[in-house]
């Protein structure tokens, strides 16, 4: 199978709230064993934002537009992803129009993505790629933004000891092939609707096993599309759960543990779908990519997974 570039991606921006120690979470202070388990896996801080998801999105998107050397009026679509659409306390139907107006997107059309959970960013990338390839669009802004409902700190914890949720947004520009920092050379996706009633509280065994299997299938799907073996990938970029879970995902998907980027776990833990893009950005700051380097993005949502293979231009 030959490698075909599907579209290009670049201009990654992101916005976090205030970084706070997980020690400050009231719900964890009552469960010292969970606090200790999280800290042992590298989870130290989380992001708490006063801004709404749309305001976080605006902050991130401004960075993306500035870095992409694109006029806002040239952007033809906004793929806006958020699990927080479900949260009526800080989402309104006016948010996306407010955001587009603030960014000056006078020729863009909004598309919403909200079902794949923490795989939202990569699913949005896939939708943008398809708009470029099927409709001939040239510049699409992808934004993912989320925030935990304020007031109940237990909602931040992924029980029993997986991670702490952070408020954040991240964004990127998807363009025609060769126009940005990376070409997308493979995408993958997988959904397991049979897991609809599984969660980590009621059936941890089935939930964990199916989660790992979904990651395996989805990583393989993008690798096969690009005709690459795991060893040909320079860095694996996943959601930012904790060191142990991320190493386990890497291992079970056929990667060496040192291929996965872990540098942000202690900094802000799990920022919904935004953390895949944030991790890619910060991974490149830590170790700049060379021409031809490959990066596999792997997003794990609730019952849905998505992957994308990027090659440095």
């Amino acid at each position, binding site marked *: 199978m030959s490698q075909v570039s599907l579209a290009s991606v670049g201009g990654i921006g992101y916005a976090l709230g205030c970084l706070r120690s997980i020690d400050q979470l009231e719900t964890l202070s009552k469960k010292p064993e969970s606090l200790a388990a999280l800290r042992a*896996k590298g989870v130290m801080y989380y992001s708490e934002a006063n801004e709404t998801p749309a305001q976080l999105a605006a902050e991130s998107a401004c960075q993306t537009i500035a870095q992409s050397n694109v006029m806002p009026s040239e952007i033809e679509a906004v793929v806006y992803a958020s699990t927080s659409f479900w949260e009526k306390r800080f989402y309104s139907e006016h948010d996306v129009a407010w955001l587009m107006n603030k960014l000056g997107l006078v020729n863009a059309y909004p598309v919403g993505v909200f079902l794949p959970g923490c795989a939202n960013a990569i699913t949005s990338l896939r939708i943008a790629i398809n708009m470029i390839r099927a409709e001939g669009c040239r510049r699409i802004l992808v934004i993912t933004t989320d925030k935990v409902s304020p007031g109940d700190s237990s909602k931040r914890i992924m029980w029993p000891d997986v991670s702490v949720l952070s408020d954040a947004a991240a964004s990127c520009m998807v363009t025609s092939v060769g126009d940005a920092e990376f070409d997308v050379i493979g995408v993958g996706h997988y959904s397991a609707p049979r897991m609809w009633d*599984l969660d980590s509280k009621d059936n941890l*065994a*089935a939930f*964990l096993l199916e989660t790992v299997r979904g990651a395996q299938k989805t990583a393989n799907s993008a690798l096969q599309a690009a005709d690459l073996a795991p060893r040909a990938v320079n860095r694996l970029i996943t959601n930012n759960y904790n060191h*142990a879970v991320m190493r386990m995902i890497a291992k079970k998907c056929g990667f060496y543990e040192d291929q996965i980027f872990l540098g942000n776990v202690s900094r802000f833990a799990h920022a919904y779908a935004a953390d895949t893009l944030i991790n890619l950005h910060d991974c490149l700051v830590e170790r700049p990519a060379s021409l031809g380097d490959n990066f596999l993005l792997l997003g794990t949502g609730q019952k849905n997974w998505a992957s994308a293979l990027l090659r440095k231009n």
Partner: protein
Amino acid sequence: MMNSQAQMLERIIKTLRSILPKGARDLAIGSEADLQMLGMDSLNFLEFLLALEDEFDLKLTDDLLRLKAMSTVGDVLELVGYIQSRGSDVAS
């Protein structure tokens, strides 16, 4: 307990010991042992399931794992025994 079941229990415990945190590996473990009380966290538990698949050449599907919550070593023994008794229609 039948001999084959005793052997199965022994293999389950051996697999479990290879996954347990170092401090718990030398503890006496019987069928009544509670997995959480042995210090298993969610990740250890996942590793244990994957190791059981290798040890017994099984595929633990979500349908099978829904049959019984696995809190104790005895629960694991019951599930593995059930899968093996059903033979090739559920084993890999």
